[in-house]
């Protein structure tokens, strides 16, 4: 039970960090930055 719980938490952490890494990809970072800045 403890192992299953640890695996579930680890999988959730990996998924969250993978999505976070996607935000740091230059193409998305550029698109978001341009859009945010263009609004002001």
């Amino acid at each position, binding site marked *: 039970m403890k192992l299953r719980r640890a695996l579930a938490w680890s999988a959730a952490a990996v998924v969250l960090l993978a999505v*976070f890494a996607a*935000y*740091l990809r230059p193409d998305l970072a550029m698109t*978001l*930055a341009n859009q*945010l*800045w263009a*609004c*002001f």
Partner: protein
Amino acid sequence: MSAAAPTSSARLSMTQVLLCGAAIVTLSMGIRHGFGLFLQPITMERGWTRETFAFAIAVQNLAWGLAGPFAGALADRYGAFKVIIVGSLFYAAGLVLMAVSTSGLGFTGSAGLLLGMAQSGTTYAVIYGVIGRNVAPEKRSWAMGVAAAAGSFGQFLMVPVENWLIGGFGWQSALFILGCLSLAIVPLAFGLREPKQPAPAGHQQSIGAAVREAFAYPSFQLLMAGYFVCGFQVVFIGVHMPSYLKDSGLSPNVATTALALIGLFNVIGTYAAGSLGQRLPKKYILSSIYALRSLAIVVFLAVPLTPWSVYVFSAVMGVLWLSTVPPTNAVIAQIFGVQYLSMLGGFVFFSHQIGSFLGVWLGGLLYDRTGSYDVVWWLSIALGIFAAAVNLPVKERAILRPGAAPA
């Protein structure tokens, strides 16, 4: 159908409710969160101003809030799964019409009105009604935290996904693909189809009586006031912080990383708030969240502005971002029971959306009048202290109704 709490033998399984409910809010909260990415391609191709696009999104947010109590009442009365299916069909239709609209009016009707109504039928209030009725009170707040975390994850996930879709297929095809994706909510809704219940014995309450009871009850008014502040702070920071950073000379990448950090820590915060709600009085959790938001803003304004101060502030605000959602809805269930939980959650969310509207609007208005965001930052701090104070006297125990079994 009657939407009173089912007997334990007639309940849906908690795993089923959580899997289906979490998947639905992941899609419904996620798809809408990436709409900002469509601003440039749509306005450029259609020859519209940004105002046309922004107006449609503003209408969407107001429609979401206004339709919430009605969608909730229908879900409580006729069954959440029917409302979710209609919401999913509205979502798909809204996205397809958004892609083919060539006039500002058509775009406002689809991206604004239709998608706003779609969200009212597929997001927290309706899903929380099913959770409330099918998950035992001792696990309810935790379960609401799981669903809220799923919605936060959807918001976090779909921005890069939609960016990839637009880059790979073009904005119009991306909207068609998202329309198909929103139809995945339909089969998931069947997982939330509650068995028919016999009418509960004893006290029977009409929708009108439930509304009158809630609005006359001081704790409900206090919860609405707190949720108003939540909407004000979150949307003011989400919309105006990039401009604040730009004015302060920070690079665009700092704003992008800040948004990513808010998204990441929001998932953690919503889950943690739901879990804590099982152990601590929810009014203290809510009061602490609002007080900590004010404290975080004070510290952020007091320290020199650097990329790292922005990152730390974003992570802290991320934890506190939507963490008000599970305890607010769980305390409503605790006070009023679960028969009209979706409708009452819809009313409280309407208050949130009014706060959101004022946060965006006042942020811009006061910036134009004073030349800085200082006044609105301090207004946010004051409102946070106000919300922390008004949540403290909330009475969490079940309301007493003559001749009724305990909620």
